[in-house]
């Protein structure tokens, strides 16, 4: 038995812009074991919640991650609203759903571009990001920010979107969907994509469930589980089914994200059709959060958990975020066992690592 070599991978790596470090134990070109470690950008945001006003924290919560920024803000606000016993007006709930879905699409498109880049398909990368840019424009038009939406607050949303803009966004979404379908066809049909992803990094359904995988990693392995099924926000009233693929390889995870984008376009259209009239926020004056709760939401990368505890003071006692990437680290270690060194970047990318958001 030949001795093994240890190859360090990251935190600076040409294809992986995320600060994760992997110690790869290699036997020739094959990975025997992978040991991940993180913490390069740990910011201690959870402690910040114990010092800041709970209203100010919604802005900090949104800055946990730059890609899934809106859903972090939404989760925090939902948690605090639950602790305060607030009922958010339906219009705010629907608008939150629209923004959450737009951010899901842009996150998946960003990932598709990055994964195309990881297997060396530069033009596909550029085309994915061209389409993502159209969505970022919609975000800017409706909220005023491109990355940080800044519209979610405890008790509702900050700014209303008028009906004319909503109709325009609805038409624009249809155009973007048509442009997206062309790019999606390349991902589905092009032999380069298939050669690099099909049969690589296989994770079985039982392993995925036992290791606590979340999001597209879990659904790509054939487990039907989408936290949106809890029916938070407006998801309980919309018609949709979780997207599931059974192969469990990198290609299946890619396909889950491709289909989720189409689904999100559909969800946005449904929300615009059913948009209720009315107020967009309720007053939080004189109320303080009290109690504890566990809020779970579906982010583009999977299930995110917020644990909030408050004792009726201005700041929360404890704010804990379990981001989807953290749950996906253990499945990643399992996937990396026995793969080729050249496939490591592709496999690491298919869990859609967001290490910075992992380290609150």
């Amino acid at each position, binding site marked *: 038995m030949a001795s093994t070599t240890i190859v360090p991978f990251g935190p600076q790596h040409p294809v992986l812009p995320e600060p994760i470090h992997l110690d790869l134990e290699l036997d020739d070109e094959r990975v025997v074991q992978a040991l991940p470690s993180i*913490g390069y950008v*740990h910011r201690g945001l959870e*402690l910040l919640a114990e*010092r800041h006003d709970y209203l100010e924290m919604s802005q900090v919560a949104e800055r946990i991650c730059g890609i899934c920024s809106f859903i972090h803000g939404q989760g925090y606000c939902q948690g605090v609203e*639950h602790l305060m016993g607030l009922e958010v007006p339906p219009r705010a709930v629907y608008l939150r759903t629209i923004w959450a879905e737009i951010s899901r699409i842009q996150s998946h498109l960003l990932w598709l571009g990055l994964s195309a880049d990881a297997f060396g398909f530069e033009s596909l990368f550029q085309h994915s990001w061209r389409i993502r840019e159209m969505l970022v424009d919609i975000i800017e038009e409706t909220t005023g920010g491109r990355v940080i939406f800044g519209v979610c607050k405890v008790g509702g949303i900050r700014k209303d979107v008028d009906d004319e803009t909503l109709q325009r966004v609805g038409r624009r979404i249809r155009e973007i969907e048509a442009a997206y379908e062309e790019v999606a066809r390349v991902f589905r049909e092009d032999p380069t994509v298939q050669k690099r992803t099909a049969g690589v990094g296989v994770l079985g359904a039982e392993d995925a469930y*036992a290791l606590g995988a979340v999001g597209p990693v879990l659904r790509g392995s054939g487990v039907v589980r989408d936290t949106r099924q809890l*029916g938070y926000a407006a998801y309980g009233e919309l018609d949709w089914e979780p997207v599931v693929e059974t192969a469990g390889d990198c290609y299946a995870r890619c396909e889950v994200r491709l289909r989720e984008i189409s689904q999100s376009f559909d969800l946005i259209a449904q929300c615009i059709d059913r948009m209720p009239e009315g107020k967009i926020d309720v007053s939080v004056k004189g109320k303080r959060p009290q109690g504890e709760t566990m809020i*779970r939401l579906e982010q583009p990368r999977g299930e995110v958990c917020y644990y909030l505890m408050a004792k009726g003071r201005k700041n929360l006692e404890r704010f804990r975020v379990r981001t989807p990437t953290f*749950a996906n680290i*253990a499945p990643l270690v399992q996937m990396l066992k026995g793969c080729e060194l050249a496939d490591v970047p592709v496999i690491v990318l298919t869990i859609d690592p967001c290490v910075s958001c992992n380290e609150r």
Partner: protein
Amino acid sequence: MNLEESFNDLELAQWVATAERQRADGFRLVQMTGTARDDHFEIMISYDKEYRCENFRVRIPRDRPELPSLSGVFPAAFTYENELKDLFGLAVPGLAVDYGGGFLRTKTKIPFSGSVTVKKEKPGSASSRKTADSKVVPFNAKREE
């Protein structure tokens, strides 16, 4: 929205036994988290099955911060346990993959273990904002575009 989630208190001795029971019942490990209190640590674990979440909590005294590992029951627990170890300074005997405090490479070691001290920043007057590397535009001036 479904929020009927239970928070149950556990004795430390039942920690592993509960995990085994949950695992046998087909639950999935969702997360583990810690909270630093004045005289003890609170460790909470959440399991999920078919969108129903169950949370269990144990208290760990500060003078003997030890948490038995769940690595044998849930292999994925190693990430959470290493995180608890790195953030709160708990000892986790029986940990499958032990980084020895190097999983989260934070600058401050065990940053979450202490009680929270609030650092007050006093806003000074407008002119006190000027630091060596800042460019202060004079009063009532427009920035040239």
